[in-house]
């Protein structure tokens, strides 16, 4: 006759292994993405920073990538999860190309595929810690959508992630209109990115703007925005708050 000695919380060993296999917190993160539809397609802006907690550790991270012929994916959140998603999409677009039959996955299909992936991961309590922005043009129709880490998904004329939701979208709601020219679109995005640069501590002054049209994707070279710090109240910041620093 055999009997097992009961160990208190013996399952902890097994659970610990399971716990270490799922995402609990993000480590290296990217901040906001802002994107708008314009006359010829979609414009998307992001900075090139990767924060490690409060440290701005990486300053050359491309957070926007072309997917297939028709789409552009931008991500905020955990950078390694974004890279994982790019691998999934790589496999998907590879298989799509291998069919070689004149059919191809457009932005709508990619957006829905990503929604399924994000939602299913969320259901397993092992999310990909990203908010994704998917823009594209196919057969003359522009498409712009977003998926969050819990699988919330929708389309809109202008989207933003993270801090962008609070700081950029109000600007876009006031100033976006259909059929923006390329120059006006870039100006509008720069306006949003400047506010984010001033107010989001994880933002850095090195941004890229990506454009997707029927012809394809172009991601600009990184550049910086002009900022102004000579406001009079910055000269003696504690003047109206004695004792602070």
């Amino acid at each position: 006759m055999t009997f097992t000695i009961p160990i208190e919380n013996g399952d902890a060993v097994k659970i610990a292994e399971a716990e270490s296999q799922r995402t609990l917190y993000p480590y290296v993160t990217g901040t906001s993405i802002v994107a708008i539809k314009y006359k010829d397609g979609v414009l998307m802006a992001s900075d090139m920073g990767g924060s490690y907690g409060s440290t701005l550790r990486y300053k050359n991270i491309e957070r926007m990538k072309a997917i297939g012929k028709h789409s552009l994916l931008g991500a905020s959140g955990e950078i390694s999860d974004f890279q994982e998603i790019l691998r999934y999409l790589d496999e998907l677009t590879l298989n799509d190309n291998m069919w070689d039959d004149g059919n191809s996955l457009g932005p709508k299909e990619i957006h829905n595929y990503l929604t399924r992936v994000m939602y299913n991961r969320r259901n397993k309590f092992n999310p990909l810690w990203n908010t994704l922005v998917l823009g594209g043009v196919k057969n003359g129709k522009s498409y712009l959508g977003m998926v969050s880490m819990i699988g919330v998904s929708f389309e809109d004329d202008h989207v933003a992630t993270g801090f962008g939701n609070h700081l950029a979208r109000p600007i876009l709601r006031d100033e976006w209109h259909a059929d923006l020219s390329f120059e006006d679109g870039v100006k509008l995005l720069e306006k949003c990115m400047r506010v984010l640069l001033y107010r989001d501590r994880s933002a850095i002054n090195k941004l890229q703007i990506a454009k997707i049209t029927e012809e394809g994707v172009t991601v600009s070279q990184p550049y910086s925005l002009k900022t102004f710090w000579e406001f009079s109240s910055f000269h003696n910041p504690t003047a109206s708050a004695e004792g602070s620093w």
Partner: protein
Amino acid sequence: MFRNQYDTDVTTWSPTGRLFQVEYAMEAVKQGSAAIGLRSRSHVVLACVNKAQSELSSHQRKIFKVDDHIGVAIAGLTADGRVLSRYMRSESINHSFTYESPLPVGRLVVHLADKAQVCTQRSWKRPYGVGLLVGGLDESGAHLYYNCPSGNYFEYQAFAIGSRSQAAKTYLERRFESFGDSSREDLIKDAILAVRETLQGETLKSSLCTVAILGVDEPFHFLDQEAIQKVIDTFEKVPEEEEGEDEAGEGEAEAAAAAPAEQGGAGAGDQDVAPMEM
């Protein structure tokens, strides 16, 4: 085809490089009642002859909707056809769910063909005994495919399978060159006329045939009996007009006969060429 020592197993080759079980499966397709498909650039029409087991029973369903943009007509073992239709519906709906976009018909037929091929290479399986005429849409417009028990598939402008399909094929061969630009109504009329050819003299009535259509802006649906009867009435009433058309048609017959690989030469009676090798 005669019974021989190499035809017991689907996994046994004959010395002449044939798989007899697969060929026998294709014979089963020829035993089923006729099914016809034709397409224009924007529409596909599927039609079939309604065969009933007896006067007491209803006729077998041979045309199935797979999705709004794909339909299939079968000939042969209808049970196998039903199972494959269910598979096609499943593939189509899974694709729609993941991508919110219709599955391109060209990709569906490849999945079907791969499934059929598996049955030609497992000793514990048998080939499906049904031929499928798959009509559907993808990004480049309307397409019609024929899926064979052998695991081969071909794209067609127009095709007919099942018993007495040769008569329909002859009719289609004469007229297929005009199908690309046909109007929807003309395409339906040609389909019903092709069905009539397979009836070999029996009067064509709307109760004898089933017709379904799908197109770029038209989801798959069956035509009701009245609509079919109306089309029949347009040509059954005027036999002299039909003869005039036939004479003009024969001039085209030679040009059409020269038309190559599309019709694949189902070589009726050509016993030396394995049908699956076209």
